[in-house]
């Protein structure tokens, strides 16, 4: 947790030149991480340009071409490289569009849960003991429920939709940030540089966000990568259970739910959406491992 020694941060607050270079040097030592980064870049590209990359509208139904197998299989058609689903929609177009939803889920969940979690965690670290105790008990309560179950019940309350699934997942992910931020902030608080900032007369917000927070960021960034992939998995799981994005949205988990009854007849409608989830999540987790190696020198040797 106490990864970045304060000595590394120059007192005048100017970034040391080549900080990013140093980071990338350690990051790129992990070949898997670089590989993950490239796949993730591809995923972001697809998410950004899906409407232009997809050959068809993801909702367009070609009634004469239902359940066409992928092009390389017998009966396949190069007009639909990855085949079509039971309603005659092009699998490739749906998969490419699905990247948008997953990316969106990841970004929103990480932003919301990290922002909330960091603020609550810092408050908890700086607050008087009773408030700290209350905050930590509330987090314990949230963590006592298995995350997917809690998200499921929250979505049942809010009504099944992708937005509500994101809200539920963000709430469930939040306590991890709170605990992490609080723990590293408490470690930093005892150090001399915080005391000197206090003596100089830094106000509480400045102390929290400008003095302490930058030195707690390393584990939080690693956690952000981790929760990005968890968010995609959970959103897909909720979609699969019928509590996430609703059909006909081409969200990967929802596509899997729609394809379930065809698993023994048409392998491609089941295989491709799951493969898309797996590759995306895997690339993010590979990156996360590299981030941890680069940002947290204490863990590097293990």
């Amino acid at each position, binding site marked *: 947790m106490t990864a970045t020694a304060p000595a590394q941060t120059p007192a005048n607050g100017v970034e040391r030149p080549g900080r990013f270079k140093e980071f990338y040097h350690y990051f790129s030592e992990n070949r898997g991480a670089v590989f993950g980064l490239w796949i993730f870049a591809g995923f972001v590209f697809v998410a950004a340009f899906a409407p232009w990359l997809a050959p068809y509208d993801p909702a367009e139904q070609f009634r004469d071409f239902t359940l066409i197998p992928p092009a390389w299989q017998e009966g396949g058609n190069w007009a639909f490289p990855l085949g079509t689903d039971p309603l005659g929609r092009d699998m490739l177009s749906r998969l490419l569009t699905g990247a948008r939803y997953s990316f969106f889920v990841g970004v929103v969940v990480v932003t919301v849960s990290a922002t909330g979690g960091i603020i609550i965690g810092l408050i908890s670290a700086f607050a008087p003991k009773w408030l700290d105790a209350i905050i930590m008990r509330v987090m*314990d309560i949230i963590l006592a429920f298995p995350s997917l179950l809690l998200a499921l019940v929250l979505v049942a309350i809010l009504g099944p939709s992708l937005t509500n699934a994101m809200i539920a997942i963000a709430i469930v992910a939040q306590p991890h940030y709170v605990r992490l931020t609080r723990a590293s902030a408490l470690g930093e608080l005892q150090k001399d540089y915080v005391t000197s900032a206090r003596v100089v007369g830094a106000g509480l917000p400045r102390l929290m966000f400008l003095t302490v927070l930058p030195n707690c960021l390393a584990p939080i960034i690693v956690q952000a990568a981790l929760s990005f992939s968890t968010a995609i998995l959970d959103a897909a799981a909720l979609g699969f259970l019928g509590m996430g994005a609703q059909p006909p949205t081409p969200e990967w988990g929802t596509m899997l739910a729609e394809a379930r009854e065809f698993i023994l007849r048409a392998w491609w409608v089941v295989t491709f959406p799951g493969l898309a989830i797996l590759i995306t999540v895997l690339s993010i987790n590979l990156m996360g491992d590299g981030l941890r190696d680069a940002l947290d020198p204490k863990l590097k040797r293990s």
Partner: protein
Amino acid sequence: MLRYLLSRLLTFVPTFFGVTLISFAFIRVLPGDPIIVMAGERGLSEERYQELVRQYGFDKSVFQQYVDYLGGVLQGDLGASFVTKKPVWDEFFSLFPATLELSICAMIFAVALGIPAGVIAAVNRGKLPDRLFMSSALVGYSMPIFWWALLLIILFSGMLGWTPVSGRMSLMYFFEPVTGFMLIDSLLSGQEGAFRSAVSHLILPTIVLGTIPLAVIARQTRSAMLEVLGEDYIRTARAKGLSPARVNGVHALRNALIPVVTVIGLMVGTLLAGAILTETIFSWPGIGKWMVDSIFRRDYPVVQGGLLLIASMVMIVNLTVDVLYGLINPKIRRR
């Protein structure tokens, strides 16, 4: 040690009350009038509606309702299901063995493969087995298990026809549950083929539920082993001329297991979340499927009681792990 135990127990109590508050609050904020939902499509007369409102105490103040609910909970009364009319408590414990059996098998699967894989990877650090096992572990860790389940069904049930697709037991066999564990009951029944049927129903759900724990355990074992292998006493053991198998398998592994066991203990929540998906896909009649079905049926007392029981279980296991860990590792106690 006693002080540590007491302080841990003291944090348990408010958390438990918080959990009761949350599971109580959920039923109150769920959209739709629970009584209308319970009546279903037949509808209700006005008098009957008022009667039910009184019967369930919905006419009292929210605070009074919570006090009544808490009083019930502390006496082991969690209300009755709207659908089956059976007490939630009874339903939970009649379904719980199914989930427990599946979870135990999944954990055995994960530990039996994960620990050796982690040890082999650590001993051969950077070499082929390490890379192979650790990339497989990362894939397993990233796996959407509901999709993994479907793939296994396609392969083993669809193409090879080796395993059944759903349920716990072939309909050919019937016997009274004794322990609730199919593997044991089928043996006790003495019916030929029943045990085989139970095993074949268990295999795929076990693999699916055990995949993520397997990956986590393998990764954790590897990093714990690497840490221990650098210690002086390992060098001493090697210098003494002990065989590598003995040094790695006994001296190193024994100490590396402490963090691994902690991780295993803390995995109850993960297992239960996985059970929700696994049981739904394989129509496994356990707690996970029960919760999902009840959420869809808007069976509020079940959702409320199930949430409370599951959260309490997670909390009790986590507390036990914490205390045991404090027992092994005195450093933790001083916090």
